[in-house]
């Protein structure tokens, strides 16, 4: 090994900062959570250090397993809805003139400044009976009387897709701006209509980033509990709602920890499977 290739002490020094951040803000809290999931819960108080599997056994109860499957299902669906809207949106955004394009991007990103609580409340009102969108339809004469669209499954789905939308756009944006316009033009000179060009050139080339955006939305919405809590009935609640409920309302942190770890492992599994399918089918 030559002199130049050997990492110097300074090179390790550069690594120290991210490693320290990772240890302090991720590994240690996660370790504490893993430990807590085996602690003994004291009814009416908090918990005492112990090593028991009660919390994990309780997870096997059909209610929680059913909630876990539901959570993964609705979040995958939110990912599909979100990417389904965000991808064409971002693609056409990047094909616009510079000024329109930047303005729209700023509008979308400004939605990031809204807290999840405000978003949930806004949708709660918009989909409600008293002053929601159905009143406009009544005023237009399209409906006889206002209706409530929440709580419902669709309302939760919509809310989840909404909060993840700006992040999804941000993931897709850099790659789509770099997409060479000559690629789509080449397809057109070979007889492909703009619509077919979109399907046969733009989407296949952008596939890895579409999958990345989809997974981001999935993981991101899996952690959201306010949306499901406000816009859904108990049967529309995700596992995150139960985790929050156990941790704060029931003061059962050991069980909340066990559920949180379970959810993390499940989402890692889904991400791994989707990633594997993506890389296996990319090159035909």
């Amino acid at each position, binding site marked *: 090994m030559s002199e130049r290739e050997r990492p110097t002490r300074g090179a390790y020094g550069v690594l120290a900062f991210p490693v320290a951040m990772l240890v302090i803000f991720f590994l240690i809290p996660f370790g504490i959570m893993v430990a807590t999931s085996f602690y003994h819960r004291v009814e009416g108080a908090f918990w005492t250090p112990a090593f028991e599997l009660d919390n994990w056994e309780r997870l096997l109860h059909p209610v929680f397993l059913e909630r876990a499957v539901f959570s993964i299902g609705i979040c995958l669906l939110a990912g599909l809805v979100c990417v389904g809207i965000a991808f064409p949106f971002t693609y056409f955004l990047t094909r616009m003139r510079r000024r329109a394009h930047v303005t729209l991007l700023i509008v979308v990103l400004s939605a990031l400044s809204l807290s999840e609580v405000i978003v949930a409340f806004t949708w709660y009102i918009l989909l409600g009976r008293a002053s929601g969108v159905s009143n406009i339809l009544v005023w237009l004469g399209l409906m006889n009387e206002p209706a409530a669209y929440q709580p419902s499954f669709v309302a939760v789905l919509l809310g989840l897709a909404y909060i993840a939308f700006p992040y999804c756009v941000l993931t897709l944006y850099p790659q789509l701006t770099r997409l*060479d316009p*000559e690629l789509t*033009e*080449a397809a*057109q000179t*070979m007889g*492909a209509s703009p619509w077919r060009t979109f399907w*046969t*050139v733009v989407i*296949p080339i952008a596939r890895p980033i579409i999958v990345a955006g989809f997974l981001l939305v999935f993981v991101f919405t899996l952690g959201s509990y306010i949306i499901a809590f406000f816009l859904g009935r108990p049967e529309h609640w995700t596992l995150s709602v139960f985790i929050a409920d156990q941790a704060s309302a029931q003061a059962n942190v050991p069980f909340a920890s066990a559920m949180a770890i379970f959810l993390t492992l499940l989402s890692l599994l889904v991400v791994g499977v989707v990633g594997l399918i993506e890389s296996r089918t990319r090159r035909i």
Partner: protein
Amino acid sequence: MTVEVRGGLRLEGVVKRFDEVTAVDGVDLELPPGKLISFLGPSGCGKTTMLRMIAGLERPTEGRVFLDGEDVTDRPAHTRDIGMVFQSLALFPHLNVAGNIGYGLRIRGAPKEQIAATVEELLKLVSLEGLGQRRIQQLSGGQRQRVATARALALEPRLFLLDEPLSALDANLREQLQVELRLLQQQLQITTIIVTHDQREAMTMSDLVVVMNAGRIEQLGAPLEVYRRPASPFVAGFIGRTNLLRGEAAGDGTVAVAGRPFDVAGGDTAAGDVTLSVRPEAAQLVVDGVPERNALPGTIVFVRDLGELFECFVDCGLDEPVIVAGSPRDWVPVEQGAEVAVRFPAEACVVVAS
């Protein structure tokens, strides 16, 4: 049996404006089918915009485009029956070589066996047999260029358009591919338009050169004709190098340059200010005195021997030094600072502006 004539192109009063910038400023052009035509000009002269309007990728602000007599101005690119090679080549990274070449046929809904057969044929045509399953990322620059060519020809288009297709390649490969492309075009007899800023490329390949500057056509003609008889100082300077001599025409075929009489071949020029163009290889160095006609005295400021060519820069009191070039074989030894004269033979003096 009548031979089908395809790919005749006509532009009528074509103008293209982008906001405030006029890229193409009123072009009328009629191009014969079956030939190779090059649009030659410096960057920003509007040559690529012209090509894109012919392809249907840009819509002219004014004017019409006719293909085989049919007005195609309002027809989008995908209905025009053209093949195009882009500057970036624009090969699809998600498809292999065969997938790229067969893309157009697949879009058209051709049966699988027919696509495979056509792809094989095209791979052979561009000497890439057996590389159909390669990924684009595994190809060299020259191979990619050939794939792009094959892909553009797959649908047997009426027009074959190339937008600076060789600009990313190194000089040797570029020359080789220029010859290959030209031979391919002659074999297929397909109407071809190539955009280039390289005059050697244009002269190597074309039947017809369209020299453009600032959105207008400066000259249209056979390569050698454009080289020998440039229509304007711009063309003279852009196609090869030249010496420009400003003078005053007497109206009787003679021109006075710096007070010395010049005979000009075919010089029935009206009296007034004129500019003469003389190619460096047509100018001659005279070491024993100053001839009376068609010559200027001067001092040698720089001499260089390029091996294949010997060049001499002579200060004749004009704006720029006069360049005299010749074969090293019949070169008179001269030195920097020597007092000499440069002779400009009458048949080499071309009036480029009056």
